[in-house]
């Protein structure tokens, strides 16, 4: 019973199949992906990160931020809004049809959503009926899902979003919130810096560790001018414990902290794509997550 060569061949063949199917074919399909031109703005998407943000990505990688934070928005099946853009000349008939489409629609006004349905065919038919009556109606694709409702992104994340990520740090666990669009959610650099310095100054009971080693603490006399680049304490005035006496401490972010924040600000993949349509303009961020206790973002 000597199956040696047979086993060797079989073992080689099965691994070759897996290697071909999961590495070579995907590489042929999407390995050469290129930036696309956005229909709305004519800009290329995505754009490479600026130098400082790239340095920030290295800080993010070195400290293993991806161990707790994912960077991927998930999406449920989309729904379709029938939107009335213009009533046209025959307003009464349009109103009548709108009521037939959706009893609860109320008085049709330009810019109003008449109906929401999970079936694209129905939405298209309804839009056609309105258009036939002389109105201008359009079907808008609305992404759904808990991630989107939490304000973690306007649409699902797709391969195109990660074209310039090197290394790609999608993350596999959400011990902290998703950061896919943190740049849009928390645009202020000061907020990010204070949050990195001590998250509990910003959010009560936050589970994120403080990254004080990214900051220099510079003592100075109370009447002396603040150190160059020191963080603005008015943002955390309520929670920042200022020592009594003649000296105060200035919090000065290091170059690493500034780069990291620039990287976080660059995370904002909201551009509507063919494979991932998003309503234009993207909805404002919901304040459901990490509601700041002391500061407005």
């Amino acid at each position: 019973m000597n199956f040696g060569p047979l086993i060797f061949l079989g073992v080689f063949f099965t691994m070759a199949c897996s290697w071909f199917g999961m590495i070579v074919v995907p590489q042929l399909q999407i390995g050469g992906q290129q930036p696309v031109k956005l229909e709305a703005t004519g800009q290329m998407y995505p754009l490479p990160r600026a130098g400082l943000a790239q340095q920030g990505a290295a800080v993010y990688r070195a400290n293993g931020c991806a161990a707790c934070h994912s960077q991927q928005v998930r999406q449920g099946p989309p729904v379709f809004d029938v939107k009335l853009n213009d009533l046209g000349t025959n307003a009464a008939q349009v109103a009548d049809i709108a009521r037939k489409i959706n009893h609860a629609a109320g008085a049709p006004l330009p810019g109003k959503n008449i109906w929401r349905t999970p079936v694209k065919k129905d939405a298209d038919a309804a839009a056609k009926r309105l258009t036939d009556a002389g109105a201008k109606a359009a079907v808008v694709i609305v992404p759904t899902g808990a991630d989107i409702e939490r304000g973690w992104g306007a649409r699902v994340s797709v391969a195109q979003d990660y074209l310039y990520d090197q290394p790609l740090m999608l993350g596999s666990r959400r011990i902290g919130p998703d950061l896919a669009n943190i740049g849009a959610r928390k645009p202020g650099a000061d907020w990010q810096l204070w949050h990195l310095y001590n998250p509990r100054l910003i959010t009560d009971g936050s589970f994120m560790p403080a990254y004080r080693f990214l900051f220099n603490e510079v003592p100075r006399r109370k009447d002396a001018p603040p150190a160059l680049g020191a963080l603005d304490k008015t943002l955390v005035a309520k929670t920042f414990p200022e020592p009594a006496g003649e000296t105060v401490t200035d919090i000065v972010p290091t170059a690493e902290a500034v780069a990291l924040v620039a990287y976080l600000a660059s995370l904002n993949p909201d551009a509507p794509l063919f494979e991932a349509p998003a309503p234009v303009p993207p909805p404002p961020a919901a304040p459901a997550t990490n509601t700041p206790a002391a500061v407005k973002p």
Partner: protein
Amino acid sequence: MSASPTSPQNSPAEAEASCRLPLLVFFGGAAFWLVAASLLGHLASIKLHSPSFLSHCEHLTYGRLYPAAMNALLYGFASSAAFGVALWLVARLGRVAVPQPWLVAFAGKLWNLGVLAGVAGIIAGDSTGFEWLEMPRYAAVPLFFSSLFIALWTLLAFHRRAERGLAVSQWYLVAALLWFPWIYSTATMLLVCHPVRGVMQAIVGWWFTNNLQTLWLTPMALAAIFHFLPTLAERPLHSRYLALFGFWMLALFGGWAGIPASAPVPAWIVSVSNAAAVMLFIPALAVGLNIVNTLRGGPKIVGCAGGPFCFLRFAVMSYVVAAVAGAVVAASAPGAVAQFTWLKTALTHLNLYGFVAMALFGAIYEILPRVTGADFCRKFMRAHFWLAIIGTVIHVGALAIGGLKQGALLGDAAVPFHNVIKTSLHFFRVATIGELLILVGNLLFALNVVGLFVKCARKCCGAQMSCCAAEPATTGGAK
């Protein structure tokens, strides 16, 4: 292989004795890295409970400690122990002496140094950022070459075997020894040396992490199980055909699983991968059935007194549970709930601790006394067994339940994210208790291995260096 190379017919004792030196390197390193991994992992867990713990230190962020612990466990402990078990099985089953064993021992030392450089690099901030492949290039390259050498040398010994018939264990270990250098070199080339673009990195990364578990550690653990369980129970294997079927099912589907349900990649990749992941319960059931039928119904009922047999039997149970749970989670609806939660971590830990590590413990407890002639402390072994299984059950159970809850709450946007984390952290605290038990068990294991080395060294110095020099004179004394 009809034109088999003629090799000197070695006695089993001689064959086993030939791998003594490499085994001391592999198993000694494994014991060291196991304790290191547990300690690093425990520090990381404490940091999740109290975020200000050690937060002033740049080198001890959670994001550095946790990958360092996983790498120490995967490469330092599991892979190193697997190399040792494979070498011993090849020598023992093929009745062949390993040629120039000091070369393998040297390669094993290089492997350990590579792991040391890699773990130190991760803590210093040189991590590559790819899960389970965080070790920087200066560690990955020596690791690759030493693993390639160890694999080739073991296969060379296999090729020269005197006993030409193949046991089930040998299929698994030959396959794994061919697969590991392949997957490791592919992933290192495409992620660390000449990086691919965009989500291709994620695809290569998922392919690698899956294959490291499914096509490297799993077959190695199964090789140990298929050799030791029937041997210890003194029963013939129930069905060779069932084992053959399980082996080819694993080989066929194992390499395709691993892509999460809602990955931002072309949909066909996700579908193919999830289908393969579901199919992976077939090889697990085949192994489980085979082992159950082997152990059952014999004239002799094998008792479990915390010896190697118990470790291996628990490993089989964990394997089946992990594979079935993995198949459920791979289906798209449960997969969406499980993604980004502790549930995935729970299944990974069940696979790594409950299955792979337990099988390797059983094998090491059985092999080391045979090659050194010194005995393990039975009390420590028993304590290790109970600590390990209770710890694994608590750890994995708490993480799994916590993960399910976390997934359900994540899917409900009305629950603020802060509350999601608060809820899952309760479960995480319980899981840490389990982890603590595992840590104590691992310490006992390491102490036991060190104690055995000391006993062995005493014997050498007391007597005429009979034990540690590669002389076959005193071997075979353990059994």
